[in-house]
């Protein structure tokens, strides 16, 4: 059930109707949890059991960590929680990858492969669940008062499949809220959802039409076409994932909950460190707090800091998928982060003009997307070598590459809003729209749904999507992780 499919609209409409009933908060939480399970079951009902297993283990482990007096006992329960989460993740996601790698090392041509179907959202909900027990262990949060609360947190459908990775410390304090729609929640939630839908259907799906055939057969195309394909994919993954995040945050707001900001105009970054502060923020901050810092962070000398950065990004790459292309992607980013840190610490002699540093960062990020998107490592190699040597081949520059222009304008507007003291431009007010800053979800647009002008704006946006969306939609890229 994709967020952009007609089925999802029916699902959310019915759910909002149920949450508007005059029943207790506990009953509404039960409805919400059941709806989340239904949402997950629409993908594959057998893995609901796995989700339940993860939630029970971590709920019990966190409770025991909280009540245990002895540090040894607390550590043991934490170890059980982390080991079970990583074990489940490793089995479902990495078993065949390790078998194939091992077979390669020992020279076996046909390794034994297991028939394992990757459960949807496993990378996201295991990380989310682990952060809960770790935060309880660190005494940063109290454990959930009831299993219903924890089950609702783990299964919360807007972010269950592809994030944002919501930490317990962000979500659990909202448990006292009375879920259900009201005028202000609908205004902000619907606006965000529509913006996300527009990003997905008007931009990401169009960029995909350009990128997909080029990445499928890079050996056919000229260097210029390959460069256009790489640009299309860079735009597609941004519009796809940030559009998904907007829809997830918007849906959560419709129901009455705040999810954290996941993107902050990443392609305007002027260095790779800034890029990772703006791209997939909930993952990068998770890796920082639960991997980089425990590894020692920058507290154990320069060399160890570089190693920690590289290791964190390498594992971050592997988190995305079980393949060497993701390892390469992570290694490239880890290396770049270490290099940037090294140059920054050497002094200010490397201060480049802003447009140059922006262009260098953007081109590097686009190059890194090639192994991320290509099906195999050899496809990546063919793509990169043919593009960099400007090889001859079929010249097919997708016209949708031009959609980069509205994306760039949007990013420039985002940059302007970041620095503006009065954030809402006057032309937006003409549509009864305003830019609002939420402490959890970041900047977002709010269309006035209760006024004639606002209703007109919403209708216009829906009309735009209706008229210009590609008829077929591709699954969200991050659903595969």
């Amino acid at each position: 059930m994709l967020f952009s499919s007609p089925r999802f609209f029916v699902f959310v409409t019915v759910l909002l109707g149920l949450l508007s009933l005059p029943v207790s908060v506990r009953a509404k939480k039960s409805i919400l949890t059941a709806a989340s399970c239904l949402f997950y079951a629409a993908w594959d009902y057998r893995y609901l059991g796995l989700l339940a297993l993860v939630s029970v283990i971590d709920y019990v482990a966190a409770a025991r960590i909280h009540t245990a007096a002895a540090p040894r006992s607390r550590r043991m329960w934490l170890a059980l929680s982390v080991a079970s989460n990583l074990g489940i993740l490793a089995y479902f996601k990495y078993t065949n990858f390790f078998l194939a790698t091992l077979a390669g090392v020992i020279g076996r041509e046909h390794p034994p492969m297991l028939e394992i179907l990757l459960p949807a959202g496993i990378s996201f909900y295991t990380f989310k669940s682990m952060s809960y027990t770790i935060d309880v262990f660190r005494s940063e949060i109290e454990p959930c008062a009831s299993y219903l609360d924890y089950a609702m947190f783990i299964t919360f459908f807007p972010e269950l499949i592809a994030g944002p990775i919501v930490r317990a410390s962000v979500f659990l304090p909202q448990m006292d809220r009375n879920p259900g729609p009201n005028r202000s929640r609908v205004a902000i939630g619907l606006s965000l959802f529509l913006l996300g839908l527009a990003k997905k259907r008007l931009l990401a799906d169009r960029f995909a039409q350009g990128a997909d055939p080029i990445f499928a057969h890079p050996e056919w195309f000229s260097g210029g076409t390959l460069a256009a394909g790489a640009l299309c994919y860079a735009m597609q993954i941004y519009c796809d994932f940030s559009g998904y995040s907007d829809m997830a945050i918007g849906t959560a707001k419709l129901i009455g909950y705040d999810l954290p900001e996941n993107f902050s105009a990443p392609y305007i970054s002027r260095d790779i460190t800034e890029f990772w502060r703006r791209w997939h923020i909930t993952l990068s901050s998770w890796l920082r707090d639960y991997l980089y810092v425990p590894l020692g962070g920058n507290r154990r000398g320069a060399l160890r800091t570089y190693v920690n950065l590289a290791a964190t990004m390498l594992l971050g790459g592997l988190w995305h998928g079980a393949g060497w292309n993701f390892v390469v992607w992570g290694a490239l980013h880890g290396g770049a982060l270490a290099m940037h840190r090294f140059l920054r610490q050497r002094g200010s002699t490397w201060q480049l003009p802003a447009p140059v540093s922006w262009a260098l960062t953007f081109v590097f990020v686009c190059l890194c997307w090639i192994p991320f998107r290509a099906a195999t490592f050899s496809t990546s190699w063919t793509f990169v070598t043919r593009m960099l040597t400007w090889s001859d081949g079929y010249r097919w520059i997708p016209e949708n590459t031009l959609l980069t222009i509205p994306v760039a304008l949007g990013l420039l507007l985002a940059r302007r809003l970041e620095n503006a003291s009065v954030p809402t431009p006057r032309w937006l007010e003409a549509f009864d729209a305003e830019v609002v800053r939420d402490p959890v979800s970041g900047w977002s647009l709010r269309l006035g749904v209760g006024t004639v002008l606002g209703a007109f704006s919403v209708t216009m946006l829906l009309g735009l999507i209706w008229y210009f969306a590609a008829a077929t939609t591709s699954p969200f890229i991050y659903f595969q992780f």
Partner: protein
Amino acid sequence: MRTTYSVRYAPEAGYVNVNAPGATFVWGREGHGISHWEAHGIRRGPSPRDTAGPRVLILGDSITEALQVGDEVSFVSQAEMRLRREPRPVVLNAGHSTFSVADYIFHAPRNLETFAPRWTVVVADASDFTYNAWDKTKPRFAASPDGALRVEYVDAESPTERRFGRFTPFTKAVPYAFIRFREFRAAAGKEPPLFRAGRDAAAASSATEPDYPIEEEAAMLGRAYAGRLSVLLLPKFDVSPPFVALTPIEQRIRAGLLAAGVRVVVPEAEFRALGRQKKCPYGFANLVFNEGHLNADGHAAVAEALAREIDDAVF
């Protein structure tokens, strides 16, 4: 992105819609083309032209209609410009979206009476002899009770199109909204079922391809135009050498047509020349690579083959 559906349609017996004389069609969903239309749904040809020359009627589907390119770029126009023999024939482009061999047979009496062509060329691909010609939503082949092949007429115009068609000069949005609705509904229909478990079932159907009576279809087509007919068979294009290789069904169509006394031309040499230049005959930068309709390179290649065939066949 410019696309308008605000053409004026003229009623023609047996046709869903025929673009009215003087109508202009702006198309931007695939390629970018502006087309102009004359009487009886004939697309405007090159000008000036000597209208006293013998007429050659070109029949075909949307590939021949060629909304994706301008009037002068369509292969019918280009072919007319390339004719060498005198008196230069007037080449009439009667291409119409969705048509198949069944339509050309059904409309043969009307075509021969209205246009009185000296020669007719049908532009077709394998689908026009197979599933397109047997599609139950439009004019199609069917078996008579005695087993003989016949053509059944079906009015394919939907009630919505009939209701809103007359408003199209004034309101472009309404009919387009319905078209979008149909597209979205079709896309939604392709979504996997709810509450499934395990991997998606393989899309491949176990049903075997029906055995179409291609030889009978070819003979019927030849008879409908009294043998004064060529078929320009459009093959698939492969981006790797040798670029064009007729599939078994295409080979069967060619053999069936030749056996029925119908001339057959396949632009194999022209497509191979394109392949060597790293150009595809099909697909546009605003839609899909090497799929869909002929692009400008493809039209030029097909025009070369069509002009050669007209020069050979008409004189």
